[in-house]
């Protein structure tokens, strides 16, 4: 945690680039922006590239990919909820081989950084996917989506059990290219997220992605049945932001040095700043992309401006700043 000496608010002129070093240090990565996309919310990057230059953000986090092609769940796969949405996609995807040949190849050629999210129904599947990816050069990081039901354990979600989560993470870490950082993506649907965080870090995770969706449900009051084909779904969007910020804060308190990729309901630069002040080294913008396809680059811009106005010279100085001790007071409070 770097502590900055905070200077006065400096109102910035909109025209020029804010004078802030936006490099994000995330485990062994140095990304040109602390703003990434979120898995499942930006496809494999190509669709967004029409709305903004995807090489200018931190990285594209690709939709979680499994070993084989997957059809996903039946529709309806979404329901809008207050300031959020539910989804039950069921990890539809092309399988890792087609993904590497087509989608990842496109991203590489485009010059964008790729964080590859992987999923599996068993430890073995995660390992198989990881080994296949090991042969591919240029992947920035792996993100392990452990919010998948464990087919070998009555469908219990890996992320909800410290042991199962650690098993997956340690197996992936061992199978992956040692030079590629492995992030474990945590579920908020647990009694003690710090305990899970601690376990997966001990199991070898180089960093944590915090948080995945919350389990939720909507009843369609016309059909008088669950609205989603999958019955329950994952809740995302601004609605869950306070839960996500809390998770980041708690983990940062307990694990002062672990790299954290924060996410959950980020819509603006100030939202991103909340995560960074709470302890995130970088952030992912997910559901907000559906509202505003260029949200990631806008959040980057707004964040840069907000950091400058608060007197930070770099993103890094702001990371965990809200944890500073009481005496360490902020000088720039606005005057009436």
């Amino acid at each position, binding site marked *: 945690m770097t502590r900055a000496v905070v200077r006065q608010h400096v109102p910035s002129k909109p025209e020029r680039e804010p004078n802030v070093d936006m490099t994000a240090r995330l485990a062994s990565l140095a990304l040109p922006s602390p703003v990434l996309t979120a898995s499942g919310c930006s496809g494999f990057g190509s669709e967004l590239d029409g709305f903004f230059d995807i090489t200018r953000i931190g990285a594209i986090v690709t939709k979680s990919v499994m070993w084989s092609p997957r*059809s996903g769940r039946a529709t309806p*796969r979404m329901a809008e909820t207050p300031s959020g949405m539910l989804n039950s996609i069921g990890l539809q995807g092309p399988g890792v081989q087609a993904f590497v040949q087509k989608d990842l190849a496109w991203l590489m050629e485009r010059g964008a950084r790729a964080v590859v999210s992987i999923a599996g129904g068993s430890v073995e599947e995660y390992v198989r996917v990881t080994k296949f990816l090991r042969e591919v050069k240029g992947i920035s990081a792996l993100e392990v989506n452990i919010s*998948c039901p464990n087919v070998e354990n009555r469908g219990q979600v890996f992320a909800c059990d410290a042991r199962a989560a650690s098993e997956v993470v340690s197996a992936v870490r061992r199978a992956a290219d040692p030079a590629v950082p492995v992030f474990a993506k945590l579920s908020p649907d647990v009694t003690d997220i710090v305990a899970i965080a601690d376990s997966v870090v001990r199991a070898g995770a180089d960093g944590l992605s915090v948080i995945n969706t919350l389990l939720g449900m909507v009843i369609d009051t016309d059909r008088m049945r669950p609205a989603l084909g999958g019955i329950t779904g994952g809740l995302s969007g601004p609605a869950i932001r306070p839960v996500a910020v809390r998770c980041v804060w708690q983990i940062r308190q307990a694990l002062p040095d672990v790299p954290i990729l924060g996410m959950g309901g980020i819509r603006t630069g100030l939202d991103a700043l909340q995560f960074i002040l709470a302890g995130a080294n970088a952030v992912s913008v997910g559901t907000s992309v*559906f509202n505003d396809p260029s949200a990631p680059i806008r959040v980057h811009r707004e964040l840069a401006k907000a950091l400058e106005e608060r007197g930070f010279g770099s993103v890094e100085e702001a990371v965990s700043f809200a944890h500073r001790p009481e005496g360490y007071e902020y000088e720039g409070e606005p005057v009436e």
Partner: protein
Amino acid sequence: MPIQTRGEVLDVKRAGAYHVLTLTAGSIPDQARPGQFVAVAIGGGESGLLLRRAFAIHRVNSRGVYGGTLEIVVSVHGEGTAWLADRRRHDPIDVVGPLGRPFSIPRDPINCVLVAGGYGSAALAMLVEELHSRGCRVDLVLGAATEDKLFGVLDSKRLASTVTVTTDDGSTGLQGRVTDVLSDVINRSAADVIYACGPMKMLQAVAGVASSHGLMSQCAVEESMACGIGVCMTCVLPVIGDDGVTRMVRSCVEGPIFRGDRVRWSDIGTVPVGTYGSTPLVEETS
């Protein structure tokens, strides 16, 4: 390529049960092709409705006083459409488009039957113009539950050879469904191809009639969409590919126009056995 633009509401008009909104929308009107749609953000900064709403592009005017404008036809259904119907002149509005693949247009001047249910006709107006300008014969069949839910009947008469109207309650036109008259219209006009836009059940029936006449149909489907731009995988439906394999296909980027004989209409809402990538015994999240 679709763009995102902050436009302005220029006009809101009632038309039967619908509201017709005229919007400025940057270069979208210049790019738009028949069958494409736009996705409109709902509410201002304080809005709790995150997802954009999809609307067929009804008409465009690329050289108005205000630059390019486009029209959408809104049927009030829930909160989002209610908000849109409540807009007034000069209100700001945020539009993404043009989205989706347009209707395929025949190269030759063939005979086309266009079928619409309810506000579905909004999506066909540009198609009528385009087909007409290519010398195609256009016959229209417009259906709705009641008279006020018909859209664009008068307008259609300008370019179409015939316009046949049906209503469920017989309040105007023939009492019944569009499919009750479709075969006749097909025969009468010696149709070569069918275009359709409307509720899923209607599309299914129309596709069936078309097939029974040995005709190709192009259907504009309506699936719930979270993103509209191809990144979320919510808007899928089972479609048979050229290779005969069924896939869960994104209707926002690979549709909304599909060949009627390729959509597995009865299986919408399921993942049919044998679909590419289906693993019926395993359930995974998100």
